[in-house]
Every structure is written in C-alpha cells, then in structure tokens.
C-alpha cells in the first residue's frame, strides 16, 4: 500500500489532480469555519456584483454566492461520494458474484448489467427522479449510484472470471481457504487498483449527474448544490442580467473537481497500465 502510494507520487498527473482536489476541499471545509454565516441567508439584494464584502457578489436571492458555492460544493461532493460508494459497492458485489460464482448467476447478472449499460443511465435517472416525490441529497445520490454501477460490475466480472481460474486461486482452495477468504485475499487485491480508479471516476460522474438532473429541476430539495446553483442561475436569468458570477464560478468549480479526479485517474492509469506510460 505504502509502495503503491510512493509510485503514485511520482506521477505528475496524479499530483496535479490531488493538489487541485486538496485546494478545493481545503477551501470548502475551512472557509465556512471562518465565515460562519448561514449560506441561505439573504444578505444582499439580487445579483449584486462582486464587492469587497462579497467577493463573488450575490445570487438571485441576494445570497452570498461565494459562501453558497462553498456549501454547494460540499453537497455536490457528498452526493458524488455517496453515489460513488454505492455504485462501486453494488458493482463490486455483482461483478464478484457473477465472475466468481459463474453459471446461471453469471448469466443473469451479465444480462442485467449489459442492459443497464445500453439503456442510457440519464433516462433511468430521470424516470426514477420523477417518480420520487421527496428527494434529499442522500436520495439523489443513491439514485445516481443506482444508475452508474454497471460499468464497475462489468469490469469486475471480467477480471474476476479470469482470476477465478488462476492457479493461485486453485492453490488457495486446496489449501483450505473459504470462499470469503479467497475473494478477500486472492481476488480483491488484484482488482483493487482498478476498483479505486473506477471509484474515482464514479465520484466525478456522480457530481456531473447531480448537476445534470438538478438542471432539469429534479435535484434534491432544501439544499444548495452546484447543480441547483446552476439551475437557479438559469431560471432567474443570470446571463441576461449580466450576472456572470452566478454561473461562471459554479461551472468552473464543477469542472475543477471533475478535472482533478480525472487527472488522478489518468495518473493512476499510467502507473497501473505501464504500456500507456509515455
């Protein structure tokens, strides 16, 4: 584990990604400790331009956009994280089950997985969100996770299937390992790097999905997220009002977070797939 980290630190891409993410995380978690105001408090008047007091001006409600951005980023990260964890766990469990058990279970799981890969997740995201009346950010995150597990499942299954027939697994079996122990010690370590990378991508896609469905007005209730901020900006005509501060920083924040995660992923990819290394 330590060794892996040491290798990762040598990848500039990974480091850049990590640094950007660290700056974002630092800012969004430290700033609200300094400025303890309520982000939904309407302190200025609508679309006040940036000033010394409010460095990113005010949004349509007269809320401090910068403070809102901090809380919004937190919500989005939370949604991305929960969605990522959910999708990864579901994908991992189904992939392992299909790959390791094989047979009928494999056929059924693979069929479902392939279907959900082809049926656009956006469609399911909309249909499920429309059908759920009260959405908290956790519910939104779970819905997103629900639609994004198939990729992980498919890859985990493929790798597990090939690992299952490897001789070290056979040796472990005839050394009396239980199935759980085999999965934990003989299979998981081999796919761990892949799963971590997939998890990072899932977080990024979770954040992007949240933004997309919030744009459609299907985001979580009673909270501020990056997608909801974009949605308010469009609904309250920030572009027409010239209030670029209501949507440009938000767009850049979404891009910065997913960019940092993508960078980390690319860096890891180059480490773990040495052929891609330049």
């Amino acid at each position, binding site marked *: 584990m330590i060794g892996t980290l040491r290798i990762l630190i040598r990848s500039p891409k990974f480091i850049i990604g990590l640094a950007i993410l660290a700056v974002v995380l630092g800012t969004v978690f430290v700033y609200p400790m300094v400025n303890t105001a309520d982000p939904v408090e309407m302190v200025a008047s609508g679309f006040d331009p940036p000033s010394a007091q409010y460095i990113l001006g005010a949004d349509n409600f007269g809320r401090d956009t910068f403070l809102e951005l901090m809380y919004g980023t937190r919500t989005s990260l939370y949604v991305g994280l929960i969605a990522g964890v959910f999708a990864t766990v579901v994908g991992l469990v189904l992939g392992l089950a299909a790959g390791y058990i094989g047979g009928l279970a494999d056929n059924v799981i693979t069929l479902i997985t392939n279907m959900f890969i082809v049926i656009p997740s956006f469609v399911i995201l909309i249909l499920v969100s429309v059908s759920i009346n009260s959405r908290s950010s956790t519910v939104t995150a779970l819905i997103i996770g629900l639609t994004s597990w198939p990729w992980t499942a498919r890859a985990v299954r493929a790798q597990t299937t090939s690992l299952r027939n*490897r*001789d*070290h697994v*056979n*040796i*472990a*079996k*005839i*050394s*009396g*390992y*239980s199935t759980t122990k085999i999965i934990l*010690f*003989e299979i998981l*370590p*081999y796919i761990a790097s892949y799963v971590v990378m997939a998890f990072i991508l899932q977080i990024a896609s979770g954040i992007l999905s949240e933004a997309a469905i919030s744009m459609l007005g299907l985001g979580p209730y009673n909270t501020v997220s990056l997608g909801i901020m974009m949605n308010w900006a469009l609904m309250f005509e920030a572009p027409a009002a010239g209030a670029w501060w209501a949507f440009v920083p938000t767009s850049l924040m979404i891009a910065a977070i997913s960019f940092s995660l993508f960078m980390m992923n690319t860096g890891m990819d180059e480490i773990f797939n040495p052929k891609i290394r330049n």
Partner: protein
Amino acid sequence: MNGDSSIVLEGRKLNRQFGFGRNRFFAVSDVDFVFRSGEIISIVGESGSGKTTLAKMIMGLLKPTSGEVMFRENPRSLRTKADREEYWKSVQGIFQDPFSSFNQFSKIQTLLLDCINLLKLKLSEEEKMNMMREACGFVNLEFDELYNKYPFELSGGQMQRLMIARIFILKPKVLIADEPTSMIDACSRATILDMFLKLRKQNDMIIVFITHDLGLAYYVSDTIYIMEHGKIVERGNAATILESPVHSYTKRLLADVPKLKEAWDLG
C-alpha cells in the same frame, strides 16, 4: 499392475460438460481410472484433450457433471469444510505455471503457513518456523532469506521448488502434478523430477503426472492413460503402451516424441 496394493482413488464414468444447449461440449466424457498406492501414473494428451479438466476434477476444484470419484473406496464428499480439508490433506496438486500459482500480494511464508494450518497442527511459532525451514531445505532453498519476500522477487525455478516444499509439509497420499516442469528450464527440470521421486519414496505417495510429453511419461511412470477429445483411448503399463500402441492417436503421439514441445500447453 500391482493388484495387491490398495486402491486410493477411483474414477467412475466421470463426465464434465461446459455450456448449454447447442453450445454444449464435453471436456471429459466417461472417464474411468484407478489409482493404487505407490503408483506413478501419467495422463497424456495434447492440449484440449481434457486432461487438465480431469486433473481439476480429481483435485476437487471442478464438480463432475456426472460420475463419481471414490476416495478410499467410499464416494468422495466435499460438502462440508471438514470434508474438504480432510480430502485436501490427502490429495494435493502442483500446477504448470509457478508464476500464476503465487498470490502476488502475500509473502512467501503465507504459502507454507497455510499448509501448516491445513494440517491443524498445534505448534509454537518457533516450531512452525522450523518446519518451514526443513521443507525449504528439502528443496534446496534458504528459508531465512526467503520467508519475508514477495513472489515477484523469486525466479520460476525457486517458485516451483516452493510448491514442492508445500507438498513436503502436507505429505499427501496423492499428488496431481499438472505439467509441473513445462515452464522450467531444462536443468532445473531434472532436479525437480528427482524431488518428486524422493517425496514419493518417503511417503508412499501416488503421483499423477498430467503431461503432453509421452517421453517423460514413459521415463517416470508405471501406468499411462492416453486421452483424446475427453476420452481415455488407451491405458496400461508404460512399457507396453510404448512398445505396442493400439490406438492410432497413441501412435501419432509417439511419432511426435522426437519433435518435443511445439508449444507450451496452456490448457
């Protein structure tokens, strides 16, 4: 054949099919075998003949689609954990590719410790270390240098010898060796074969070589089974088969002997 020694393993009409419906094919069909204690057996066939599938069924890694394996004259049961552990104390295997036989993420000692644990011996740390040291000594390896290393720090020959050290600890009744030397350089090959024979002498162990090399089979074994398309096409005393083969497939295999090793058998 030594009719007087006891039967340890017996296969009755073993079948293994893969796939369903129109995609179904039989990797192993209607195979019978009898392994008596002290015997060395070779199962010879080309790649795709089903010999590895058969080996896995004998080891209990694959369930036969139909047929039965008799262990010490009783139907083999692998249902409970205790059953399985009991079986694997008696029936063990060595695989072709030493590189893939190791879990890259565990240290060398884990491999040997697992064997000690399988034997359920109540030993102190010190005694365990000694046992492993002895096993490594048997295969000419320096345990104290190795035990804290990871597999990728070892050579192929060292790895395969460690696999034999495993068998040394476990002392099974039956050893299934699936092309154990095919990925080893020629000079370690002889050493390794010697170790097998030494082991057998110590424990009165049955060794089943799974191989495509009829020459090797003749050199080491008492009994030879010839396998083609999942079926045993010919069986018998090694010398008899080599001198007067009956089946055309055996004849073809014999003709190939001088050519030797066109490709590594990955099946």
